[in-house]
């Protein structure tokens, strides 16, 4: 009998607990509902613009004809992929894309990192803000505008060659020379976009607990040692995050930039996968092979992102998602 009562009590208790849990959950839902609703527009936009176009992948397996549409076009299987892999331009474009964007990723990480560390050491606040803003401004300019400016700056009679001339160096045809062209691509791109990563890094630095620095100072660590033993380790998660994200876009070597700046003499060092797609798809109107290249690129990116995500997790126990 007692046993049964005890059992009943236990059941009641459990029910009560469950009730409480549910109540809490309800309260949370009520609290968070507006937030969930606010998510909806974002989800809609993502669905339309990121998931909707995915149906276009089907083009890569068809001989797509716009007026016949997705349903009417002929299915050709992997023919488009065979076609693009046999294009003589493809391997060149693939190599160039890898090379240019690897350089961009490495330099594009190092420069903002160093900049943010330097700016962090500046004690005058107005100067700090001024430098930060002027570095950030080029980020907002479009390549269409910058293209013309860069042509002028690096032309044979432009300021760069003028300065080189002063120290006795023959004018260099930067934008028409295969030796220099990737270098110009990387430096101009890093110059344009370094402000963004720099701001992210600066934010990461401000997140570091100041008491760590105080403790280090008490222990007799100078500025250098503080930077290496506190600032950099404190920024590590953000550095890894940015690294992982950029590895996903390793085959995006910067379409707009290259399209604005490249020309026949530098095709062999500047032609990238995206410009190849542009010529195939928009100039030649061969939409299907162009879609096939795009799909191929996405597959590589997906693989690389997965690998780098896994490595970031394994090596530094850091999860992005």
């Amino acid at each position, binding site marked *: 009998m007692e046993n049964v009562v005890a059992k009943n009590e236990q059941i009641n208790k459990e029910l009560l607990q469950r009730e409480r849990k549910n109540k809490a959950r309800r309260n949370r839902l009520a609290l968070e509902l507006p937030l969930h609703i606010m998510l*909806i527009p974002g989800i809609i936009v993502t*669905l339309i613009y990121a998931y909707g176009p995915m149906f276009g992948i089907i083009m890569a397996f068809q001989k797509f004809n*716009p007026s016949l549409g997705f349903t009417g076009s002929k299915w050709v299987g992997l023919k488009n992929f065979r*076609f693009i892999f046999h294009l003589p331009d493809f391997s060149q474009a693939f190599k160039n894309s890898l090379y240019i964007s690897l350089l961009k990723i490495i330099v594009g990480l190092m420069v903002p990192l160093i900049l943010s560390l330097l700016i962090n050491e500046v004690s005058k606040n107005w100067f700090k803000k001024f430098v930060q803003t002027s570095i950030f401004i080029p980020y907002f300019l479009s390549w269409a505008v910058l293209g013309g400016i860069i042509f002028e700056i690096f032309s044979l009679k432009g300021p760069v060659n003028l300065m080189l001339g002063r120290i006795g160096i023959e004018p260099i045809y930067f934008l028409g020379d295969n030796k220099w062209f990737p270098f110009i691509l990387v430096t101009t791109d890093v110059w344009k976009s370094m402000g963004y990563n720099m701001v992210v890094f600066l934010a990461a630095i401000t997140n570091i607990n100041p008491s760590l620095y105080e403790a280090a100072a008490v222990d007799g660590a100078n500025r250098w040692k503080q930077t290496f033993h506190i600032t950099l380790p404190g920024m590590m998660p953000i550095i890894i995050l940015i690294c992982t994200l950029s590895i996903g876009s390793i085959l995006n070597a910067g379409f707009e930039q290259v399209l604005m700046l490249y*020309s*026949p*003499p530098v095709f062999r060092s500047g032609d990238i996968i995206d410009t190849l797609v542009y010529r195939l798809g928009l100039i030649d109107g061969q939409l299907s092979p162009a879609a096939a290249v795009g799909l191929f690129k996405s597959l590589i990116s997906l693989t690389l992102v997965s690998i780098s995500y896994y490595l970031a997790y394994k090596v530094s126990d850091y999860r992005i998602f």
Partner: protein
Amino acid sequence: MKKRRVVAMIMFILIMTSVFFAGCKKEVSNTPEETGKTENQSQETEKKAEEEAKKDTDPYGKYDEQVVLTAVGGVRPPEQPEVPAGTTPENQSFIKICEDTLNVTIEYLWTVPDEQFEQKFKLSLASGDVPDIMKVSQQQFDELIEAGALADLTDIYETYAIPEMKADYEGLDNVPLKAATRDGKLYGMPYAVDPHQEIQLLWIRADWLKKLNLDPPKTIEDLEKIAEAFVKNDPDGNGKDDTYGLGIAKDFYSGIASIKGFAQGFHAYPAWPEAWIKGSDGTLVFSEIQPEMKEALLGLQNMYQKGLIDREFATKDLGKVVEDIVAGKIGIVYGEWWVPAWPLNLNKDNEPEADWKCYPIVSADDKPALTKVNRVNVPAYNVVSKNCKNPEAAMKVMNVYWDILFNKDPESRYGDLVKAENGFVNHYPPIYNYMAMTQENNYKLINEALKNNDPSTLISSEQKNIYESSQKYLGGDQSGSSWGFYFSRIEENGGWGTTRKVRDAGHLMYNEYFGPATPTQVEKGSTLEKMKVETFTRIIMGAPIEEFDKFVTDWKKLGGDDITAEVNEWYKDNKMN
């Protein structure tokens, strides 16, 4: 408790479905359109039946209910100075004329500056957004036919086209119509041009020649000497080393500032689209892999090394070269007959002393230099979308356009709206046509009229415009525009005058191929083209000439041999002589 879970579940489902449907919104709104299309098609067939019952075959027949034709446009500024500022394709008087006489109106879906047109148009075709009437390039024409997007105009042309237009095509043995026909169906009204218009001429600043005591060139060697003097001896006298010899743009197949005229001096025939000339065995060969091309590239390399060509030509597009011409930095340029009308006139406006003269191209050896011409030249096709409900209305619009431009006294039928000062711009309407023999007719008629001081023999308003501009110029008007009109079209030693001389001397090399792009051309075209342009540019800039031989082997291997076979297959049935 269960109830609450159900409520939560329902809410979740509601949210998700609303998200889902919102996501589908685009597609949902698309489907009625598509069903609308099929409805339209059935309506179209009904309408056609009705119209056939009416037996309305008047080429200028007015509709009872207004017909709307959609169009798109690339805007190039008007050539005539009288056109009021602010005239756009949307408010041009041609639309008003069509509304008044045909009860047809033209609605522009979009307009962009001319340079962006090609790309925007391609994108809009790729997204299936085809306007009712449009003028398209050869490549787009082929693509649209393959896509089945064009209306068959065979019967419409027979029934509705005005006799004057038919007569002009017949004057060219209907070859342009043949080029617009696939499988016996006429898919477009070709805007045909006298093929001799692409004869390359040599344009030199005679005031610089005079200043430096030089004679006009007879050979390529002379030309090089002149170019050298233009670069080194400061012809503009500003004390700065800022002049180039020969003006060449990176896209070097254009009508001006191309490598074509220079290469023709070496009996090589670079061209875009590709030129197929008759080889020694009677079959067609690709002009740009011939040994003469190698010589021409060596010649250009030599010029480049001596600094006679802008060292940065490879990164300068036509627009930049034109800037240099206008700024008076270039003294020699190859171009077709029209270049005084653009851009040399702008240079003259800028520097009134600039005295551009025109010469036949010069040869590197004792053989005369031939210039490449096409057997038939159709720069554009006026086509009608197969979804257009009234394709014959498009034909009527073309009739009116022709009637205004090439028949006598259009004012009597259309009033003052056909005048430039009231907003009539020849190249604004969405269709474009031209009497193929216009330049020749204009040259003869207007010179005659100028001699007799009697403009009454002139037919078209265009001829009257040119007559007036010429009179202004001969009366001492030094504006670049009047000079451009006169020197390009009328002057005996000007653009067309020299073109005629070259034509009558028979210094021509024919491109024998005028068929559609072959399957391999479509597939490998851009790859081969890129390889070609890259190799040629690199050689001009000093790469070893062996790259040319490698290019020839690669070109053949990567599809060129297949294209050659396809082209010759076509040639068997389409020989012109």
